[in-house]
């Protein structure tokens, strides 16, 4: 199991995967908006999206879990 975490504080702009999707390491799964920039967050491991913890528009702090990959 691998948790995808926010790399910095900001709000969730887009979640580009759904629960059940297969993802590969390095693939962008969430895009944050912070400091007026698009901040892509990539999966660190190959796997299947088990659960999406946050919703688009949520404010997240650095280190908050966004989704879980299994």
């Amino acid at each position, binding site marked *: 199991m691998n948790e995808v975490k926010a790399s*910095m*504080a900001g709000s969730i702009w887009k979640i580009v995967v759904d629960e059940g999707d297969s993802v590969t390491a390095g693939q962008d799964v969430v895009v944050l908006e912070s*400091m007026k*920039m*698009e*901040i892509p967050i990539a999966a660190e491991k190959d796997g299947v999206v088990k659960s999406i913890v946050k919703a688009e528009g949520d404010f997240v702090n650095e280190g908050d879990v966004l989704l879980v990959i299994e």
Partner: protein
Amino acid sequence: MSYMEELQNRVNTIKQGGHEKYHERNAANGKMFVRERLEKLFDNGVDVEDAFFANCADDTLPSDGVVTGIGTIQGQKVCVLANDSTVKAGSWGVRTVEKMVRIQETAEKLEIPMLYLVDSAGARITDQVEMFPGRRGAGRIFHNQIKLSGRVPQICVLFGPSAAGGAYIPAFCDIVIMVEGNASMYLGSPRMAEMVIGEKVSLEEMGGARMHCSVSGCGDVLVESEEEAITFARNYLTYFPANFRSKPNITDSIDTKKMDQTIADIVPENPNAPFDMYDLIDGVIDADSFCEIKKLFAPELITGLSRINGEVIGIIANQPRVKGGVLFPDSADKAAKFIQLCDAFNIPLLFLMDIPGFMIGTHVERAGIIRHGAKMLASMSEATVPKISVVVRKAYGAGLYAMAGPAFEPDACIALPTAEIAVMGPSAAVNAVYANKIAELPEEERAAFIKEKEEEYKEDIDIYRLASEMVIDAIVQPNDLREDLINRFSVYQAKNVTFTERKHGVYPV
């Protein structure tokens, strides 16, 4: 036995280091014997070795656990000290320390680089009165390192532990190369941590190579094997002069890496969309010349040595692909040390800017982002080597300052046509100025109003307007950037200035 035979026998015995079982243990852990490391490090083995017979009265402590001497790396003479982990785990006795102090003094006298090949359990408690507190005790090693800093390159290769006081050897070096799995740095071992503060933690987690190279920033380069560590150290030295009095060697110019994209293709038009700054760096430097420092630490800022037209250049570049290229406490810290390193050894600096500014919010304020940012500005400002800043895209707020903006005496601040220089980006600025007005407007009129004000703002900060005001020195076609940099660096290399007269600044550390 003749006296000649006796000498030969003694030499042979000492050269073998410690007990066979420790050699076997090293081999099992992928570790080389200290003399094998030195064979691989130097062009032709150790040229000069002194105090080989240190502590030879005790036949269990060959060379007292450290090899010190002079060898040659790619034609350059360097001093080295290398712990022998087969001798009492590379621990320091009184003669070990004296040998280390002496080779540092030699490096100072000859003004040649000093290498530390560290693999040591730390002090020998049994020798503490002789080796710990006195004038030529272990403290003198660090005192000498601090004195040598900026005079000659100091390189640390960590093959094994570097514990307690010994952990300060890497801390005072210009660069620390760590072998994953074997290298570690810590003040108190996990056993001690459990005893004293009740924490249960593994060595790898607390002081392992990967942790230090990606989290603490105490390590600079993570490698997989001892061979790779040695190869890196040999290559790294080719970017440096022997000491602060000279300049790095210039090599033949090599074309850039063959690429599918031009710089114009790499930089997207949408200022908020990310791109990979490594591609742009490849489009500017000689092929295969990038020697990255702290790749895994604070990757929102890229720092590395490179060659442009054969000349060594230090690159500091924002990485929009990671955290939007925003500066954080760690990235500012990383930049400050790298800039000092380059300036100390006459390596010109190139700043590639695409920066929305310093990070804001509670988290970073509590971490002291202001004083960490100030560190970066101070090093950048004080650097008197040739300095060129390039505004690739955004340069907002204090980001412009930290990346050698016009006020900090770069020899040139040039812009690509995609550049945007401002206190803040258009949408943030409109919000800051017109927040009350926007709130008063009926809902349906707001979007149009915001758009109109944003357009006005964009015109106000238009790059040609800034060129007209002579804020920037030139606007360069993206695909001519390398050529322009080659011309400028070749002109600016004649620069010879003193920053200011004083003992030293009071730094925002």
